[in-house]
């Protein structure tokens, strides 16, 4: 009994002490906080220099495709032949969805459903299976869909690495597989659709925050949770930017997407450091909470980034914040349907299909603020022309 307690004490003390000794380098941050060279710690294993360079290059690239329809545009397209998948319609299109467990995916999925409706003649059946955020269930779901007479399979993987074998198995069935949002570690799908990606997002936000604040100022990085690849790449790009700008990242904290936790963390950091000169976030979910924490503490809101969620955009507009909103646009949910129909018609599609990834800035902010839409709606949904707008998204 005493031994157990001793062990526990040791664990507690070690845990506390281990962290307390991070003292000299104020960035008590994720994976290993003791890396001396950079202020933000060791680079994540998700960081792939080549991809990073490629993505940053794409930020400046001009899209090909119909103007005003970014979901049909592609950046630097490299076309893949799809003649072997050509078959007459109407089709049954199946979709294995990682989950519907956050507003981004909800808005995206509604957009996708609306897109399907615009093709009623060609799509006789749209089968949707929700994996509820479970890798294991999604693997089973994909397997299940293989027996349901699908003409094309769309997959939005829950986790890149772990869904790879299942996607490969689906490819082997001879089915055209289209992957979007998160990718898979295999080239077997016909195409992989996503916007520029996490590096672009993280970079744009970090550049903005570090440029708008005083040099060497203190930045607080707020992250949702560790281990999500999309979010990891955003942070790894931000690290590069912050290190280059020489700002002082005083903390990297996980909020679990919980606004209350966010406010507490921000509040404590404000108290601990007196002022925080910039806030970077890997996703917009708790941006409003972070802003409110400054307001409630009676401090000016420092340069901050959010995402294209309307609550943040409204607050930004109303309070005239110094802010930016890089997006991970939900209009990308339209593209897989469009791509699937193209593939089944034998038309070539770009692989990878890189979609433009617009950034909302002070200049174009007012285009996106729509007081009639719900607060957690994503402005960059490209859905205003779709059937059922706006009711479907309310």
């Amino acid at each position, binding site marked *: 009994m005493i031994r157990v307690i001793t062990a*526990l004490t040791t664990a507690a003390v070690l845990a506390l002490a281990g962290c307390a000794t991070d003292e000299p380098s104020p960035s008590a941050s994720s994976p290993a906080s003791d890396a001396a060279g950079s202020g933000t710690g060791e680079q994540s294993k998700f960081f792939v220099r080549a991809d990073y360079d490629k993505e940053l290059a794409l930020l400046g690239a001009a899209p090909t495709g119909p103007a005003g329809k970014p979901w049909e545009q592609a950046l630097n397209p490299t076309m893949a032949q799809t003649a072997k998948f050509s078959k007459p319609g109407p089709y049954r299109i199946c979709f294995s969805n990682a989950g519907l467990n956050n507003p981004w995916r909800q808005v995206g999925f509604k957009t996708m459903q609306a897109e399907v409706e615009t093709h009623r003649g060609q799509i006789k059946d749209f089968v949707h299976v929700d994996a509820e955020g479970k890798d294991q269930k999604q693997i089973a779901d994909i397997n299940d869909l293989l027996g349901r007479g699908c003409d094309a399979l769309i997959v939005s993987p829950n986790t890149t690495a772990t869904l790879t074998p299942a996607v490969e198995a689906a490819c082997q069935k001879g089915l055209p597989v289209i992957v979007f949002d998160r990718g898979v570690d295999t080239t077997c799908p016909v195409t992989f659709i996503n916007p520029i990606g996490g590096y672009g997002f993280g970079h744009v936000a970090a550049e903005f925050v570090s440029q708008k604040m005083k040099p060497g100022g203190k930045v607080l990085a707020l992250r949702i949770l560790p281990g999500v690849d999309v979010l990891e790449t955003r942070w790894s790009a931000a690290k590069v930017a912050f290190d280059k700008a020489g700002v002082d990242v005083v903390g990297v904290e996980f909020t679990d997407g*919980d606004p209350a936790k966010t406010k507490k963390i921000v509040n404590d950091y404000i108290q601990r450091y007196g002022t925080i000169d910039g806030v970077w976030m890997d996703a917009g979910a708790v941006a409003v909470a972070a802003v409110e924490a400054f307001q409630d503490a009676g401090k000016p809101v420092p340069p901050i980034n959010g995402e294209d969620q309307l609550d943040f955009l409204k607050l930004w507009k109303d309070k005239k914040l110094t802010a930016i909103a890089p997006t991970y646009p939900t209009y990308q949910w339209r593209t897989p349907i469009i791509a699937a129909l193209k593939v089944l018609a034998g038309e070539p599609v770009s692989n990878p299909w890189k979609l433009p990834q617009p950034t909302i800035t002070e200049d174009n902010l007012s285009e996106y603020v729509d007081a009639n839409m719900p607060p957690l709606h994503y402005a960059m949904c490209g859905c205003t022309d779709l059937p059922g707008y706006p009711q479907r998204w309310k």
Partner: protein
Amino acid sequence: MRIAESRVLPRFARVRPGGLAPIVAILVVLLVLLTLRQPDFLSPPSLMSFLGRSAPIVLLAAGQYFVIVSGEFDLSVGSLVTAQVVVAARLIDSEPSRSWPVVVVLLAFGALVGLVNGVVTTRLGVPSFITTLGMFLILVGAVYLWSDGAPKGGLSEEFRRFGRRAFEDVPALGRIPYALLILLAAAALAVLLSRSDFGRTLVAVGGNPRTAGLSGVRVWRAKTIAFVLSGVSAALAAILLGGYSGVSFQAGAGLEFGAITAVVLGGVALGGGRGSVVGAMLGALTLETLFALMNFYGVSGALKSTVQGAIILLAVAVSSVRSSSR
């Protein structure tokens, strides 16, 4: 009846085992550590805001106390808080005039959920762990279903001020958050209630339901009321939490474990019959202090749960070994 000389000692000679000493000691140690790192933490403005933001979890712990001391569990409070916040946002839809009616609706809704938990547990004989686990699933599912996956509407400023605003310019203290006042009022009520006939009877129900039943206590009724109290406290917590940080599906995530942990830290025995509501609330405050401590000491975000787990296990192990070696 023969009146013998009183053998009962005066009040000052009270013996009170399993009291508040351990939790107070832990809290003091954490506060000292915190003040060493952040000397101004205990300054009035900082302390006021800390207490204000801790109000929801303290309230939940108070509600959970009544359920646990009666020998049951309430795992549904976290999902209830989420549901309440989302429901409030949709009902209010940023319309100030609806704030007060919605507050009433939320309190009624919380009481109703507690009533269902209580009746299913006591009358259908379902262990409360299962009842409230089922309720947890039902509430989360239902609220997502009802709101179509994303919260709708919005909370009015009138509604949010309970959790967010404060009496400004109070002499000496600076500002007093409304949340703190609501907490103090609710805590006072909870303390009164726990010392009332009902409160003491409830402890007896948790300690020995057969004795309680044979002494004329309607055990099922007492337990059901405890669940209702927990539901109402969840409603209050939801009002404050929604006010503090706005509408989100994450609003109540994990709060049930937080509340139960807080109650146990505060010296209340799982299984019932022992403990005080003050201890439970101090337990919640201790947890919140621990979180703040980790923020101020710069404990890596990822390691926080390890520290939390170790400290909880340590505290509970020490107190359980202490009480059993008595």
